[in-house]
């Protein structure tokens, strides 16, 4: 097993990134990353290095499940999930999901801004992009949206 600091440097980015994806915010992700590496430190002699970073990610995933279990008690997640949109999607929704000129990140920025009403700062926090990048993606998405659905479009 290598030196703890070497292992930390080698795997911290992947563990932190994964923690961000499963918790949705940097602060909690830092906490879970710390816990995973602390667990590694305490089990350093007994863990096969070949199991990394999978072992660390498993610790993060287990902690995230605990976290979501607590959140689930407070919120009605299951009801939200059991209630998908009923009506057929509008043409604009289909366009947004299928337009080949949009990348996933463009679609998501447009959805968060114009459907869920998020600020650019909130979108930047959610996506990990800078606010300038978010603005650029929104401008691009909106331009295509206007070309497809604006008054000057030939629908």
């Amino acid at each position: 097993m290598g030196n703890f600091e070497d292992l930390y440097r080698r795997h911290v980015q992947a563990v932190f990134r994964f923690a961000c994806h499963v918790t949705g915010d940097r602060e909690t992700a830092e906490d879970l990353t710390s816990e995973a590496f602390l667990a590694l430190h305490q089990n350093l002699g007994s863990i096969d290095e070949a199991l990394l970073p999978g072992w660390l990610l498993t610790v993060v995933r287990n902690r995230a499940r605990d976290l979501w279990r607590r959140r689930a008690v407070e919120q009605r997640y299951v009801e939200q999930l059991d209630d998908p949109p009923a009506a057929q999607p509008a043409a604009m929704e289909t366009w947004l999901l299928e337009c080949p000129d949009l990348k996933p990140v463009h679609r998501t920025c447009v959805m968060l801004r114009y459907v869920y009403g998020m600020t650019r700062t909130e979108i930047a926090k959610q996506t990990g992009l800078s606010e300038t990048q978010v603005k650029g993606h929104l401008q691009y998405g909106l331009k295509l949206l206007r070309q497809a659905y604006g008054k000057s479009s030939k629908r």
Partner: protein
Amino acid sequence: MKAPDDGWDREEREAIEELQDELEALQARHQHDPGIDLLRAARHDALPPDLQEVAQDRLLNDPWSRTLVDGLEAAEPSLDAADQDRLLARLQRHARRGDPVATGRTWLRPMLATAAVVAVAALAWMAFRPSPPAPQVSSVRPEPTIAATPEPPVFRLPLDKPDVTVSLSSLTWRGGGADNPLLADLKAPLDAFRSGDYASADRAFAALESRYPDAVEVFFYGGVSRLFVDDPRRAIAALTRATVLADPTFAPRTTWYLAIAEQRSGNPAQARRRLDELCRGTSDRAAPACAAIKQIDAAAAASHAR
């Protein structure tokens, strides 16, 4: 249409004027959608089982939710050098003290506060009750934080990294050459895979799934990446799709990795069936599959003898 808290800029105002009706219809349709953090956690199998099941269904059956998460997965949040040093210093401090809990654990604070109140109340009650004498009250500690090393199966199929190859159908996708967008889009995730950054590779392949539903590389290397980040259930989903695509270059390897994923997700019987299938064939995975079967049988026999 209600503006977000930071308002609309000029371009947005112009666009909203033109698209107001359509956007308002979209907002109404999605006003009760589940939180994006929840969906994103589901993508990584990081929810408690009951919640995971329904959230996973939502991701499978609702293209809107899936697309939303695809875009979020493309993001690459990172710790800069100063943040890495700060976190390491915090870890070393706690490791020296033998403290099992990271300090910043903000989501635990309300629980600890409640536990502390309960402990104080218990101490007060025990101090003032007449008899019998109060037993020693241990200090209130949070749940232990050390995750047990995942329980190994009797014989664990080894996980090796496959060579990166691209199928003929992808090389010739829409004419091939410089105009082949599939090859261009595969480059970053395959580079991440080659460099061993499996978490990034997993996200990048997942983001390509809806755009290239017939590209076997997306599902094969995406599935193997998920195995490396210890997410066998999602690996099975991707590798099963790769199997359906039935590319001859990938077929035996896909079966091999599916067996690994099934064993690691607690379905050794299905894993064994896959190995049998490979062992009977003539591919380069036949010999390793036959050897693995022997080791599984030997381990099972030793286990019975114990």
